């Protein structure tokens, strides 16, 4: 029962975020960037501005809806990059073994030794702020976990013998990896990717806070929160709503990931701390 | 002679919502003092769960739904927990299937055996650890004075199982429950451990409830056998009689599935018969039960 609960709630929250992002142009009341009227700056929530307005007079509610688009983009794209790198390296390392495996392991150890936020920070420092740099930076940080999972899953599959069977049948290595191994390791990898989406959104918030993320005036939830810092005493709603948006979105991803993991656990043990 | 263990109409299962789902349906059998009784059946027949009910270690959500378990005259199911605990390990002991994981990996085997003396006989740890050496010697572990300081991972599966037996027999229980004790061991080690159990229990007059799915093992160890299927005891007899003339269709199917030495010579080439082709309709199987009356002459192990 607990199993289903995670999946259902997580799925619902995630679906909510996706809908908010997809339907933003129809659900929003104002343009998130252009409708900035200084006369109506820092207004508390009322019937026109459901979540109030920020320092530039922009509607917080509309900005949050559009912010969902950014957060989803960040989450999905960064995890796609992560997954591709992680699976490619992990699967091939376990499959071929030898010096390649040692190399990948060493690289993974190095990546794991550097705290992910700091690595992202460094990459952003090199690439400059903005959405694209953010996607690249986040895509390059968490692949080591995915790599580990992919590697250990592939290793346990290898020991099952059907890989050897496929080899004796004369299948080429890439064919075996794509058709035999990949479908079977996708479970834990998917779990990692879902959880990674939450982590990516949180990192975006942190990086924006440090001045390196999405630049104004784009309505990423993280930068909204950063702007709100100044005004927390006079206009707390500017901080509360973006933070809640992040919280519920990440909670959704985490619950969904946990639910998926519980579903798969009898078959494969994933252990991310 | 009064039976040591008298299980009457035991029913086990789950309670979900208002409904009870029975896993064990009205199982009854008796074990005399010093007797070795075997419970045989396939996985899911309910044999392990019966033994857990006897020793009082049924895990939620399983619970007893009805019946009684009389041990030395007292109904175990009606005993307060504290009294049941004082019986456990002391008068009724159990040996489990997986020696690999059944011992605490962070404690020496000596300590774990000694715990029995401390717990049930009020000995000091120092005394108990000395007694642990003797216990190890009694289960034929070589150089017990050194082995006593070993950790479980330093011992082979067979040795670990001997440690388990030493722990179980430490306080001279009246009943030993052995749940598939040799299934996880190599065949050669199996034979030694079985011999050990047989000899030690005969020496001390310990009754044994021996659970297995392996008919061969049952045949060597037990004087009487009960066959379990789908939560019912469908046949019970002295071992030799059961094997020579099985009454219940399921028992016949079980025995029929065994390849027999020399049968090709006698009967010519035949397919190995599996149980499902032997039994016409499984759902009818628990309708009749064949419980043989106990002879005054105790049957020998076949």
């Amino acid at each position, binding site marked *: 029962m607990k199993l289903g609960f995670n999946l259902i709630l997580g799925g619902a929250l995630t679906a909510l975020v996706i809908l908010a992002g997809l339907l933003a142009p129809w659900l929003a009341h104002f343009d998130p960037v252009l409708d900035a009227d200084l006369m109506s700056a820092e207004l508390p929530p009322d019937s026109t501005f459901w979540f109030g307005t920020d320092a530039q007079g922009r509607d917080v509610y509309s900005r949050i809806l559009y912010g969902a688009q950014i957060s989803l983009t960040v989450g999905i794209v960064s995890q796609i990059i992560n997954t591709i790198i992680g699976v490619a390296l992990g699967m091939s390392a376990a499959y071929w073994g030898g010096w390649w495996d040692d190399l990948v392991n060493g690289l993974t150890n190095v990546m794991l030794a550097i705290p992910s936020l700091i690595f992202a920070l460094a990459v952003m420092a090199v690439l400059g702020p903005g959405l694209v740099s953010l996607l690249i930076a986040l895509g390059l940080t968490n692949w080591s976990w995915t790599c580990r999972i992919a590697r250990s899953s592939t290793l346990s599959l290898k020991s099952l013998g059907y890989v050897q069977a496929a080899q004796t049948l004369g299948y080429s290595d890439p064919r075996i990896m794509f058709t035999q191994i990949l479908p079977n390791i996708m479970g834990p990898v998917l779990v990692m990717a879902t959880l990674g989406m939450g982590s990516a959104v949180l990192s975006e918030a942190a990086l924006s806070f440090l001045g390196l993320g999405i630049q104004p005036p784009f309505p990423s939830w993280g930068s909204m929160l950063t702007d709100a810092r100044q005004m927390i005493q006079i206009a707390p709603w500017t901080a509360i709503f973006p933070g809640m948006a992040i919280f519920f979105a990440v909670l959704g991803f985490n619950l969904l990931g946990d639910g998926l993991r519980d579903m798969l656990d009898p078959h494969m043990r994933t252990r991310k701390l | 002679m009064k039976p040591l263990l008298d299980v009457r109409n035991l029913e086990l299962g789950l309670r979900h919502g208002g409904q009870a789902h029975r896993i064990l349906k009205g199982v009854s059998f008796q074990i005399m003092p010093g007797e070795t009784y075997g419970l045989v059946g396939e996985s899911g027949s309910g044999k392990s769960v019966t033994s857990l009910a006897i020793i009082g270690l049924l895990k939620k959500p399983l619970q007893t739904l009805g019946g009684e378990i009389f041990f030395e005259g007292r109904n175990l199911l009606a005993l307060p927990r504290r009294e049941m605990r004082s019986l456990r390990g002391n008068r009724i002991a159990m040996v*489990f299937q997986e020696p690999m994981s059944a011992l605490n990996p962070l404690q020496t085997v000596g300590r774990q055996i000694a715990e029995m003396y401390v717990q049930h006989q009020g000995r000091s740890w120092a005394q108990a650890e000395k007694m642990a050496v003797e216990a190890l010697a009694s289960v034929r572990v070589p150089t017990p004075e050194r082995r006593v300081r070993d950790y479980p991972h330093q011992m082979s599966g067979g040795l670990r199982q001997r440690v388990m037996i030493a722990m179980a027999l430490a306080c001279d229980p009246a009943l030993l429950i052995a749940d598939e004790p040799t299934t996880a061991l190599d065949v050669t080690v199996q034979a030694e451990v079985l011999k050990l159990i047989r000899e030690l229990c005969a020496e001390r007059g310990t009754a044994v409830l021996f659970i297995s799915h392996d008919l061969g093992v049952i045949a060597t160890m037990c004087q009487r056998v009960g066959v379990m299927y789908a939560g019912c005891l469908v046949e019970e007899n002295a071992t030799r009689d059961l094997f020579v003339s099985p009454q219940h269709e399921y028992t016949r199917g079980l025995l029929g599935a065994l390849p027999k030495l020399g049968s090709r010579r006698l009967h010519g080439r035949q397919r190995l018969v599996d149980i499902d082709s032997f039994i016409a309709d499984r759902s009818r199987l628990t309708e009749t039960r064949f419980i043989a009356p106990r002879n005054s002459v105790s049957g020998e192990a076949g």
Partner: protein
Amino acid sequence: MLRFTIRRVLQIIPTIVVVALLIFVIFSVVPGSFATSLLSDGKTTPDPQLMARLNEQLGLDKPVHQRFITYVGDLAQLDLGTSFRTRRPVLELINERIWASLQLAVAAMIFAVVVAVPLGFLAALRPGSILDTVTMVGAVSGLSLPQFWLGLLLMYVFALQLNWLPSFGYGDGSLRNLILPAITLGVTPLALLARTTRAGVLDVLNGDFVRTAHAKGLSEAQVVRRHVARNALVLIITTVGLLFGSLIGQAVVIEKLFAWPGIGSLLVDSVAMRDIPVVQGTILVIVVWFLVINTAVDIVYALVDPRIKQE
């Protein structure tokens, strides 16, 4: 045991070396130089001659491979270079601020352990109970919170509205200043620790040897005390150690938010100023710290669990 220790210690050295190299490579391509950030005031482009002189002084005019050799050579002597901005040795700067970071990390960890371990234990001993559900829901929520949002809210409630605690700064180093940042930093390790403790204890409880212990006639309390606790503790201690090692790296945002004078805020400021030696040095220190703690955890684990030494 000694051999094991030495082997583990030697194992991290190649990682440190590669990280040091990686850091250098990354930061040798940072656009915008320190000189620009220092000299430009946003209105006029700085005088190129001035820039050239500054670059020369900082050694930035030398070709990459030469800078690389100097870097490696310095590192070998445990010299982390000199800050562009303040001309002081990086090591000195780090030394000044590392204590504040450690204080924060230790306080956050204590907070996390004191709350998470008992909760996790109890939740595992009563699975499916209200306590269990609340603990797990709380844990997953804790992992979903943006750290600085939590910090902001705490600041808002406790410092600005209620005025119980100072809203930022190290102040006179007293405990009052430590509370808010420590709690904010400690929430994530708390959530993780509660989950791993619960999972670890449950694992042990479901283990065969716990069933054996019950079969021996021990009471619930005795089983937990003698058999479960030790086995679960091993997992808990290693988790605590690993979390602690990564805590300094995660404190970056918190230090900035609460204006806490630790190496996290030093790092962020230096990145903004393009003060490369400080950036490189700080990252290296953080990484080395993490690896050292991890190795210590492994060694402690080997001491406690007799199975490991056999390797």
